[in-house]
């Protein structure tokens, strides 16, 4: 689960990390009060969306008067911001962060992720901050430091000093950085983060370290023990069908083809999409109904798939490991009747009681193509979608 910049910065502040004084607004009329409360004569206004690259797309602006802040807020609130990290529809802007202006002497890069290779939380730092960091990593890898933190010992001072060298910090900044690294690691562990990025981490004209941005991603598996973070969830940043699916414990990603897919297991769902493509078709979605494909979940899944007007045929591919295929067959029939599916449905059942499942499907009153072989089922779906 992603957090907005203002939510990330609130967490930073909680962990004594240096962030700008700022206010978040949801209504353009509140911009004036926000500017006055913050004080000063220059402000940064930032559209809040779950994506990077906002600056280059006009989603961040330096303003000299509260009127300009109001104007900016009126322009963006309710609109969608498209950046190179979003899809072509962009992300809805429903809040604006207004901050005091920070004078920047230098821009650095700092992030932390769970690295699969070292099986540690790894901090990544570079003296070259800003949006071209991926290029830096590719072309001049020696300008980047990767520092793995032991899960049981936590971040140590020597690790902060190592990173500080690569960030080219002076003695005073290095002293500031040591507690900063320890607190970032503490935040990462205590709040169950899966990603944390400060880009840029800046050195102010006063020579102090300052977090100018905050990108935070939370491990969804751990949301159950992070009730405060769960409250920060903003469904407007997600595809509506994807969030509807998530509410029902279904994993759905919409794609641009016309063959709706309902599969159990993420791997098999991807494999089914590949098979459809292999036979010349185009999948309309990725959908994993999970290990326990009950009638209720199958109904929900059908509803979500059919909500996409492009879908011409649905391919159901269930390999019954935990569940019995005869129960799934009954569930599919009931779901089709309940939802009122009018387009062709191809069903492939395999595994536990598959023969019984196929028999139930073939005896049903509604039109279902029951095909046991996955290749044949995919070919049939591709043919029906043409």
């Amino acid at each position, binding site marked *: 689960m992603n957090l907005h910049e203002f939510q990330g910065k609130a967490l930073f502040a909680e962990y004594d990390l240096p962030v700008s004084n700022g206010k978040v607004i949801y209504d353009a009329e509140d911009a004036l009060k926000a500017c006055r409360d913050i004080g000063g004569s220059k402000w940064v206004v930032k559209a809040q969306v779950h994506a990077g690259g906002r600056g280059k797309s006009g989603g961040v602006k330096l303003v000299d008067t509260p009127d300009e802040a109001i104007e900016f807020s009126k322009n963006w609130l309710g609109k969608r911001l498209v950046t190179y990290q979003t899809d072509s529809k962009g992300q809805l802007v429903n809040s604006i962060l207004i901050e005091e202006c920070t004078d920047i002497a230098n821009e650095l890069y700092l992030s932390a992720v769970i690295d699969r290779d070292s099986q540690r939380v790894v901090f990544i730092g570079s003296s070259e901050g800003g949006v071209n960091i991926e290029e830096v990593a590719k072309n001049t890898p020696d300008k980047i430091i990767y520092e793995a933190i032991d899960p049981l010992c936590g971040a140590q001072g020597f690790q902060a000093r190592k990173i500080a060298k690569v960030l080219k910090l002076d003695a005073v900044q290095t002293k500031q950085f040591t507690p900063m690294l320890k607190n970032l690691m503490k935040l990462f562990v205590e709040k169950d983060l899966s990603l944390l990025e400060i880009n840029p981490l800046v050195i102010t004209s006063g020579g102090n370290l300052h977090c100018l941005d905050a990108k935070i991603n939370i491990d969804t598996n751990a949301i159950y023990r992070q009730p405060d973070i769960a409250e920060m969830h903003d469904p407007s940043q997600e595809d509506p069908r994807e969030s509807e699916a998530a509410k029902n414990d279904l994993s759905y990603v919409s794609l641009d083809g016309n063959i709706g897919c309902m599969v159990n297991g993420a791997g098999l769902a991807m494999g089914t999409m590949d098979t459809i493509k292999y036979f010349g078709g185009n999948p309309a979605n990725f959908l994993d109904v999970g290990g326990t494909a009950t009638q209720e979940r199958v109904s929900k899944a059908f509803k979500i798939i059919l909500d996409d007007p492009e879908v011409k045929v649905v391919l159901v591919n269930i390999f019954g490991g935990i569940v019995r295929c005869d129960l799934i067959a009954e569930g599919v029939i009931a779901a089709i009747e309940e939802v009122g599916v009018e387009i062709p449905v191809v069903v492939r059942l395999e*595994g536990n009681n598959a023969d019984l499942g196929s028999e139930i499907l073939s005896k049903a009153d509604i039109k279902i193509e029951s095909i046991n072989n996955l290749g044949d089922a995919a070919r049939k779906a591709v043919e029906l979608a043409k």
Partner: protein
Amino acid sequence: MSILVNKETRVIVQGFTGSQATLHSEQAIEYGTNIVGGITPGKGGQTHLGQPVFDTMEEAKKAVNPNASLIFVPAPFCKDSILEAAESGIELIICITEGVPTLDMLDVKKRVDELGVTLIGPNCPGVITPGEAKLGIMPASIHMPGTVGIISRSGTLTYEAVKQTTDLGLGQSSCVGIGGDPIPGSSFIDILKLFENDEQTKAIVMVGEIGGTAEEDAAEYIKNHISKPVISYIAGQTAPAGKRMGHAGAIIAGGKGTAADKIAKLKECGVHIADNLVEIGAKVAEVINS
């Protein structure tokens, strides 16, 4: 022979009296798996499925001396259960549960490695040696004793590969679902090593998917250390690049992790590629018969 589990394996089930554990333990016992008891804190002294229930692993270890544990406890309690098994001297731990927090797994992985314990999973279908023992949630009927070793990150994709090798009469030596989580207890390489040393295994199927670099690492290992033929299928060849947030993921992956990268690397290292999911079995037969 086979790998990890056989008829002699003495299995203890953690979370024994829960509904999923009960369902799959019943099937495992029916299959011939030597389940010697289970653990459910607070229910020690009871009997479940004809086997004794214990409050702690320590008690179970003394009373019935298990050497493998099968875990079905809910995700918030997996860290505790895995560590309890590992600290009690269990040699093989198979964790089926999905949804375990990644940071829990960082701690767990470090500790099981220190203790030299083999952990499979979490978020996996388990391990089966056809005709001998089933420690997991896979459907028994699709398996058949034979010569193909199967390793996979995905549950239902494993079943697909199993079914195809059974239909062609090849059968399986053992099948291991290592799970799809970012920090799995065992990697492809850990299991490849075991299959290489197993006489019954004549060929190895490795089913991978996009994300991470586990397949690339395995490819390199296969080139240098595996003499048996390896056949691989990579799922997610048509999956679109997801929406991104920030750069950190991309920097750490270094542009690796796509299906095309994985396939190119595997081919370069001498691995046979099944282009399509429905052709895994045929590819294995082709390689074995050539």
